[in-house]
């Protein structure tokens, strides 16, 4: 599985850019879930995901461990998200000054924003496992291999992640009820 990532990374470095599409296909779901949770908006997440992938492609010769492509990609996505966040803040400040009355664009929710933001709040190790399991369809064995941890740890972490997600989703639910 991760040999596969390594292979495609090397194919790209070898001057076959078209093979990058396999890496895009494999990780776009996980990347979008990761970014949607952080940015809270489907369009922005897509934009950031695209930018992250393009940056990843052109920075590939700096990737030290081709087999950890995905985790490296998440790191790039985090930086892109942060930059987008900053730009967004500046834009909002300007907008507030410009048109006081106009409501800031309300975040357009993606398919399951509540879930995505709950995932974004998970501690890193938990988040990675959830992303790989459900957004990149990895088996627990494959996750164990990629994160270099025993299978038992993966399954335990996944169970804990479920508990945290539930709690977080319940809190969101409650918060919404109060708002109304």
């Amino acid at each position, binding site marked *: 599985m991760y040999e596969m990532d390594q292979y495609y990374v090397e194919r790209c470095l070898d*001057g076959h*850019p078209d093979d*990058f599409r396999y890496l895009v296909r494999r990780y776009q779901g*996980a990347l*979008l879930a990761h970014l949607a949770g952080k940015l809270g908006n489907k369009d922005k997440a897509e934009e950031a995901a695209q930018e992250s992938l393009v940056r990843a492609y052109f920075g590939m*010769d700096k990737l030290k461990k081709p087999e950890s492509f995905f985790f490296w990609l998440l790191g790039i996505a985090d930086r892109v998200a942060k930059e987008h966040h900053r730009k967004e803040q500046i834009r909002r400040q300007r907008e507030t000054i410009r048109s006081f009355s106009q409501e800031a664009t309300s975040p357009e929710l993606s398919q399951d924003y509540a879930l995505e933001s709950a995932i974004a709040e998970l501690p890193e190790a938990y988040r990675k496992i959830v992303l790989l399991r459900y957004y990149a369809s990895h088996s627990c064995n494959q996750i164990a291999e990629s994160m270099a941890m025993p*299978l038992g740890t993966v*399954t335990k972490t996944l169970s804990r992640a*479920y508990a945290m997600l539930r709690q977080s989703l319940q809190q969101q639910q409650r918060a919404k009820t109060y708002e109304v």
Partner: protein
Amino acid sequence: MLVGYVEGFLDESQKQTVAGHLTSCRSCRAELDVVRGLRERLVANGKVLAQTALENDVMNQIVREQNVRLKTPNRISQTIGIRRILMKNPIVKLAAAAVIVIGVFAVINFLGGTGSSVTLAAVLERVEQVQAFMYKMKMNTTGNMQPGMPPGEQQMEGTITISTEYGMKMDMDMNTTIGGTGQKMRQLMYILPNEKKMYMITPEQKQYIQMEFSDDLLARMKKQSNDPREFLRQIVNSKYTDIGKSVIDGVEVEGFQTTDPAVVGGMMKDVKFTLWVDRKTELPVRMEMNMKMNEQTQMEGELYDFQWYVQVNADEFKPVIPQDYTTLLPGGYKLPSFSEESAIEGLRFCEQLTGRYPKKIDMMNLMNEIVAIKDSNNPTEAALKLKEELNEGMNNLPDEEKAKKIMEIMRPVQSLGMFYMMLVQDKKEPAYYGESVTPADADKVLLRWKISDNEYRVIFGDLRVETITPEKMAELEAALPK
């Protein structure tokens, strides 16, 4: 536990315990529904996001940016990484080329058979008269073809022309499938002893590589392909069996078979070569090959459609390289020599790099051990230095210079691999003990080979070299750990 239950990673007894409990416990059943609900939500959302059409947008943007970058000269290096040169290295290609070259020699070396109606002398005589011949080749490889690559399959098919006057020319179509993606490539190879050069050209990529033979390698090639005494020696030494008569394409043939790994320089395991010789003309008709590069990699092939006595002219052996082709190695590359000193240099280099002598010193294994240092958790100082040199020290060099530098760095390793290959081929009875011998073992045999009936050459653990008697040799080897 419930997460494990819905995710299916409980073992049978745990599963039964949970299932049993669920029938009797309402609150756990409710809990199970919640967990299932959350899982479904995750899976559904995952599916939706995985279907987002990001792929084409990303690919289009890459192509656009690539074009912009290519117009800025000093950024070309960003599109062509250095690693491809390390991983998909000409060295590996060279090893593959060596296999083919050796395969060709093997054909010639096989020409013979004692005690059959096709006599050794007659075949030799015939082949000596042949100035040029052609044949076709088919080769199928499955498994891990290069270090650091997932398993795949490769089909090669092509035509080879050999002339005693001009050299050798190969035109191969390669079809490689790895992980469901296929790639087709045409490769032309020229081996030109008169110019001491070798060319590999890939027309679709508009790329070529030129290499220069070292004198010892060239002398060896010349000797092998021209000197009949050398044939005789090889044939007499080869352990083959006459497997009897058969018919190929209406031609009556006689078969010879060998499982002697020396025919491919000890680079391969489980070797089986079958040569079919025309009983009338006493010339080879077909050769079937079967061998393993390593445990995972199987090669299977056939040399057929031999045309003896073909007319060739000098122009056919002049590689055509159009102006717009680029080379990975400007100015060419001098192939390593395979002297004793260069082999010792190779052993020292490997030891410094990996912290120990290589476990085995056939070319494939050596390459794998060197490639493995990139994943080492406990790298040696030399490995760190090398990595640094590859990462930072070369940033300012143009790509071609990088490739050349890497080839230079790897030269001692290549020398070592080739030296060992030659020892195996020449049946000098090499034995190598890198698994147990360390640099501290000044009196233990690391590598030995036979020079004559009463002399052995020995490289010790401390890389000292000595010529000793067979008795002394036996004594030293008895002292090695089993």
